[in-house]
């Protein structure tokens, strides 16, 4: 019997289209007939059919709701409005009959009633569509900018936030397992829908399991459905997530296994369970080091670039996905301090500046401070002594500074910690004495003094 009821329930998506068709036909015909009133009886008959099929839809809909594990909260509006539609269809039928039962309704203009009817059937249909396709079905294809303007979340994924420094402090369930389940399972096994009677959005729901019982056998992942289904061959019908959904990452599957193996704890941090760092490597953020600030800036004028290139100064867009520029004076060794003015029109766009091997002096650093987005600066093979290096502390994005082969003086090294974003300074062949890599500002800055050596060893001269 249950099977039969479930089967009938599954006819709901088919049957709902009958009342929709009848009712829309009735409304259209009624509108067409608004002056003559010739088809009143036909329209009334159509509404009767609509009412009967709507009733049938309500019954199958209820069976579907009870047979497929939808939560009442998610279907209630569809259910109520569907029933209202059926009732309204009977009312309309009655209203258009010659001998109406409810006289009071006759006082309301028929066109108003039809309009209300149209709204009701559209509303019900829309809610039903939301249930089968998800409430974002119509919004999803829209571009993100439109989506956010309409007030829809751009994506609902819970990110797994881990990093190499403090991953141990992340709660095992809240910080790792819950987001994985949320991102890969909860759309079908959650508050809106609980396929197979299973929902995975809360501790209680997970422990309760599905219609076939518990999905976790504590400490034994291999016997736990929650894990075992993830590692079935993809073609297997039981494999989860289903073929057309986003598959689980290998690392995510391993984490679910180790969570079950650890006794599926809902409290405690990753560190508490002595988990291997390797398990989380793929979740650590990839450090993207860009040669420019993470900012949107306007494109440089084509004309100003052409004008600069006419001076034999090389200007390049850093890459196709940014407007930042890289400027090199490799073809203009006679570039002097005064020539800096040539670069003014693109001062906002310059992120990488190579003044290596030019005629610049300490005075130019004052001007360089006017390049707000400068990230990589090469001053090698010039006469920079460092006397004005403090001027560059105004550059909040400056990350790499190359001073090799300059008379840069040791005493100015102590100024580097005042640079807000400085990461690397090359000091090979300067007026300094150190050798190799020297950390500064608690390791934020690395000074590379170079002077690397490969002393001769006996085997250098052994010929076999």
């Amino acid at each position, binding site marked *: 019997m249950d099977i039969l009821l479930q089967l009938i329930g599954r006819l709901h998506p088919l049957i709902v289209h009958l009342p929709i068709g009848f009712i829309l036909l009735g409304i259209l015909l009624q509108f067409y007939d608004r002056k003559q009133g010739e088809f009143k009886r036909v329209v009334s008959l159509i509404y009767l059919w609509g009412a009967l099929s709507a009733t049938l839809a309500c019954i199958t809909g209820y069976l579907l709701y009870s047979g497929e594990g939808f939560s009442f909260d998610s279907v209630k509006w569809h259910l109520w409005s569907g029933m209202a539609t059926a009732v309204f269809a009977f009312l309309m039928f009655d209203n258009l009959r010659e001998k109406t039962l409810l006289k009071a309704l006759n006082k309301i203009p028929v066109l108003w009633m039809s309009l209300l009817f149209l709204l009701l059937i559209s509303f019900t249909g829309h809610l039903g569509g939301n249930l089968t396709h998800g409430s974002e079905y119509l919004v999803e294809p829209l571009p993100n900018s439109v989506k956010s303007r309409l007030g829809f979340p751009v994506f609902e994924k819970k990110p797994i936030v881990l990093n190499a420094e403090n991953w141990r402090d992340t709660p095992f369930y809240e910080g790792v397992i819950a987001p994985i389940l949320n991102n890969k399972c909860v759309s079908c096994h959650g508050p809106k829908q609980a396929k197979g009677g299973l929902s995975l959005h809360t501790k209680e729901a997970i422990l309760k399991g599905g219609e076939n019982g518990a999905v976790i056998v504590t400490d034994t992942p291999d016997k736990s459905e929650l894990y075992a289904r993830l590692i079935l061959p993809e073609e297997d019908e039981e494999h989860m997530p289903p073929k057309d959904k986003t598959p689980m990452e290998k690392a995510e599957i391993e984490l679910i296994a180790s969570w079950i193996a650890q006794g599926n704890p809902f409290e405690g941090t990753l560190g508490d369970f002595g988990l291997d760092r390797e398990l989380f490597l793929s979740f650590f953020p990839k*450090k*993207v*080091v*860009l*040669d420019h600030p993470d900012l949107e800036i306007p494109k440089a004028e084509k004309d100003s670039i052409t004008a600069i290139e006419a001076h034999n100064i*090389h200007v*390049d*867009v*850093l*890459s*196709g*996905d*940014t407007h930042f520029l890289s400027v*090199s004076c*490799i*073809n203009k060794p006679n570039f002097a301090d005064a020539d800096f003015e040539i670069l003014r029109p693109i001062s906002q766009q310059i992120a990488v500046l190579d003044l290596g091997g030019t005629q610049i002096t300490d005075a130019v650093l004052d001007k360089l401070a006017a390049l707000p987005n400068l990230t990589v600066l*090469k001053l*090698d093979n010039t006469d920079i002594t460092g006397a004005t290096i403090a001027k560059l502390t105004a550059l909040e994005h400056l990350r*790499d500074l*190359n001073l*090799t082969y300059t008379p840069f003086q040791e005493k100015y090294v102590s100024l580097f910690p005042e640079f807000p974003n400085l990461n*690397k300074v*090359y000091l*090979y062949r300067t007026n300094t004495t150190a050798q190799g890599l020297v950390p500064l500002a608690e390791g934020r800055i690395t000074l*590379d*003094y*170079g*002077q*690397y*050596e*490969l002393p*001769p*060893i006996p*085997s*250098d001269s*052994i*010929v*076999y």
Partner: protein
Amino acid sequence: MKSSIEKLIREKQVREAEVKTRRHFIKSCAQGMGGLALSSIFMGCDPLRKPAPQNTMAFSERDLNPLSTLAPPYGPKVKSVIYLHMAGAPSQLEMFDYKPQLHKYHGQDCPQSLLEGKKFAFIKGTPKLMGPQAEFKQEGESGNWVSNFLPHFKKVVDEVAFLKAVHTDQFNHGPAQLFMHTGSPRLGRPSIGAWATYGLGSVNQNLPGFVVLTSGGNAPDAGKSVWGSGFLPSVYQGVQCRSQGDPVLYIEDPKGMSRDLKGRTIEAINAINKKEYTKYADPEILARINQYEMAYRMQIAVPEVMNINNEPEHIKQMYGVAPGKESFANNCLLARKLVEDGVRFVQLFDWGWDTHGNVRSGSIDLGLRNKCREIDRPMTALILDLKQRGLLDDTLIIWGGEFGRTPMQENRGNKKMAYKGRDHHGDAFTMWMAGGGIKKGASHGKTDDIGFSGIEGRVSVHDVHATVLHLLGFDHEQFTYEFQGRHFRLTDVEGEIIHEILA
């Protein structure tokens, strides 16, 4: 004498006939068919893919200067590449891929199951396994294995990322080298350096964008096609420079030719060439114009950059250079100088790694050790020198051969060889990369107990190419050139970025 003059006259007549018919055709159909044909030529060859010029034939910057720089589509990690190719295929089993188990099986017959269906260049019958002929130690913080054949290199082991299970389907030098450098074992494809220069151009106007340096006494077996431009315009091919004698042949002006006169001659030639181009729109004419101009500028710039004598003594010692001779050390120092001067792609070939065991210089325990000594100091110095100049973050260094060598001792003609040797082997070999965007101290891939095949993290030659293009700021699937009616890629229809070695 007479016959050669006749030959020239005949050639002149043939050329004239060719030109006349084409000229006649294009002239008479200048507005119609010609225009159509030209527009298709333009669409096919213009790397910027601008719409075809309709009536006026304006020069784009790239037309006039094919080496002018282009922005890579995505954020690049490196600006230049130095590719150190050990032509002949070095033995991974004596350098980086430590196989202690192979010691145990030393002298035993190679199991038949490994030999079935495999092709070897020389091995016949059932060869015997040969244990590692070098001693290995874990070096640096990364604990990666380096043999005692490379005593200097162990100092920079934490700077490089190893690929331990590269594989190729070619087992002879020529095709394998072509595959490694052009993505196809057959002739006709552009080399990786040509792709890079085509896609990015080159910053320095006085130097070629793609320079090739060879050492070891021979050019690579595959010939110059390994640095050729294939179907790309020929301006993108590698320019071979010599580290002995004049860096480029005939770079000096002949006696009696002043630089000024040379300059004006080239101006006149190029003016004529530009006229020719407006008529026929053949991109090769532009390449020629540019090459004339570049050659003129190179006459000054190249001898300067190719002169290692002005380098300070400690640098010369560090690399172990031998001025005036052709050596890998000289070439490594030159590679640094070239990259410092903005050259996009520097390709080094060092010949002599084919250690079959047939001669002393080609033996695993003697000849290989000499080759290792020749590269050990220079390639280590190259990494350190680039590092201290702040150039390593902008440069990618790639090291490798065209394939690897067998865990079995070679038994050419089913006989015992004069020396210990290993045959060609493409199933698993080691490469390494260092520089910008590379995960320092990484080691990706694992071979089986005897180093026969990769069992984990196997990567193909296409994967290596995809990774190199990625580091230069390209998506290898999008970076194409239309030729003969279809889009060609360096990675053909394969290749996956090896994220495991990326920082």
